[in-house]
């Protein structure tokens, strides 16, 4: 238990009577890279939404480093050390790559702090380092709106890196990427997963196999199976869900 960073117990939420997540239990260890898979509508994105505070659960607890996240608002959860990347890349189109990263710098987040903010050398260095990591070092002055889809995905990951979260929630980070970009992203994930925990949703099994430590399969809002990629793939229930449907 000592190295558990996130413990989800009895998590439930329903939309207009439909239970998107139903009495779900999940635990993530420190430094773990967990991949969550499951058919459409299994509740994957909703799970991440609830962890990061976007959706409030109807019941259950989400414990992160001894704090119950269900009681905090989004920005408090972020400040506690949880970072979230969305399914469709969500970056600030009207701002440059540099500004996008700078906004994500985890200090001066109060009104007056940001009003009198000056970019110090230290911050500049950090921005450049992150830009390097996400392959955008040459695009710092480009407006985010005109980046390619894959570059936007990277930029959003970069924004999380600026926050230096202990737990990263990534929703389909390689969707819409070319094969080469996927490889680069796999490298990127391998690099950044050092020293932090990652929960990642992905459909691309090739990609999952490449990066996952452990895999959780969701189905109809519940955990169907959990274990290594190989274990999971042999699980009869998983095969039924994926092939039988």
């Amino acid at each position, binding site marked *: 238990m000592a190295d558990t960073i996130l413990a989800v117990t009895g998590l439930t939420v329903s*939309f*207009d009577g439909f239970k*998107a997540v139903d009495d779900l239990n999940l635990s993530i260890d420190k430094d773990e890279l967990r991949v969550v898979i499951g058919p459409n509508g299994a509740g994957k994105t*909703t799970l991440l*939404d609830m962890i990061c505070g976007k*959706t409030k659960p109807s019941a259950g607890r989400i414990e992160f480093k001894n704090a119950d996240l269900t009681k905090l608002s989004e920005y408090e959860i972020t400040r506690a050390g949880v970072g979230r990347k969305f399914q469709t890349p969500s970056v600030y189109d009207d701002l440059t790559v540099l500004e996008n990263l700078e906004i994500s710098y985890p200090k001066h987040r109060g009104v007056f702090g940001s009003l009198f903010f000056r970019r110090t050398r230290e911050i500049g260095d950090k921005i450049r380092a992150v830009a390097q990591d996400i392959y955008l070092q040459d695009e710092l002055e480009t407006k985010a709106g005109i980046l390619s889809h894959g570059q936007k995905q990277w930029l959003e990951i970069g924004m999380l890196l600026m926050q230096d979260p202990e737990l990263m929630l990534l929703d389909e980070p390689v969707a819409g990427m070319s094969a080469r970009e996927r490889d680069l992203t796999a490298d990127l994930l391998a690099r950044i997963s050092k020293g932090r925990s990652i929960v990642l949703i992905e459909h691309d099994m090739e990609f999952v196999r490449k990066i996952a430590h452990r895999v959780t399969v969701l189905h109809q809002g519940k955990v169907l199976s959990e274990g290594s990629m190989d274990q999971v793939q042999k699980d009869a229930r998983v095969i039924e869900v994926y092939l039988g449907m």
Partner: protein
Amino acid sequence: MSFDIAVMQIFNGISLFTILVLMALGLAIVFGLMGVINMAHGELMALGAYVTYMVAHVFERHLPSLMGVYLFFAIIMAFLVTFAFGWILERGFIRFLYKRPLDTMLATWGLSLVLQQAYRSIFGAQEVSVPMTKWLTGAWDMTEGIQIPLNRLFIVGLTILVSLGVYYLLFKTRWGLRIRAVTQNRAMSGAAGINTNRVDAMTFALGSGLAGIAGAVFTMIGSTNPLTGQLYIVDSFIVVVFGGVASLLGTFVSGFAIAQAQTTLEFLLSGSMAKVAILLMVIVVLYFRPNGLFAARVRQ
């Protein structure tokens, strides 16, 4: 408060409810289904009122024997004229603004100024008097002390009719299906072979036409002048938003709530204070239900 007065107050509440619904229904359709905030909705109502005025004059001059039923023709004409006008407006400039809903509000506000001046130039700044339909004046004497005004009764009936009509149109016909399809997923509907431009124009025109009906009917209880529309727009707007823009049912419920609150408070307090109380009630409710009374909880 005696029993008689209580009965009449209850009727007043119902009557105001139907008036608000009639006022707001067109706006709710245009706003809720298309996201267009039409600040000229009131002026479209005024257009309906002026059409009624003209129809009344034509009947007075040429068909005096049919004056008793002119209102029915006027209502139909008001609907047709505002429907056509709405179509023109939609094609003329509303359609350029679909991606900027808040801008529709500003542009249509400019339109409302232009229309006000148009009415003033054509009909004069003074009120025009629309003749009353004889059999609708006066009251139905339920008992010695209870009088129910006939024209209000008429409005109640008409609102029920119009509401059923709108319900049928939107939920039971192919056309309604198309409208709902387009509002839910424009691209998909286009791909499915629906002429989205046409549906947009039809929807806006329908909303406008309903404003025309409301305008025609309100000549019985209110005044008709170039600024008539201004009196109604804010109330309509509040009814729609209070109910939740995505929901026509919400419009009905909020109309009912506001009407009951208003008639009760007006009886107990002064007119001004009643108004203040209602506006504050709307603010407080919006605070607790930020998307209006009827907003479904959905996964984004």
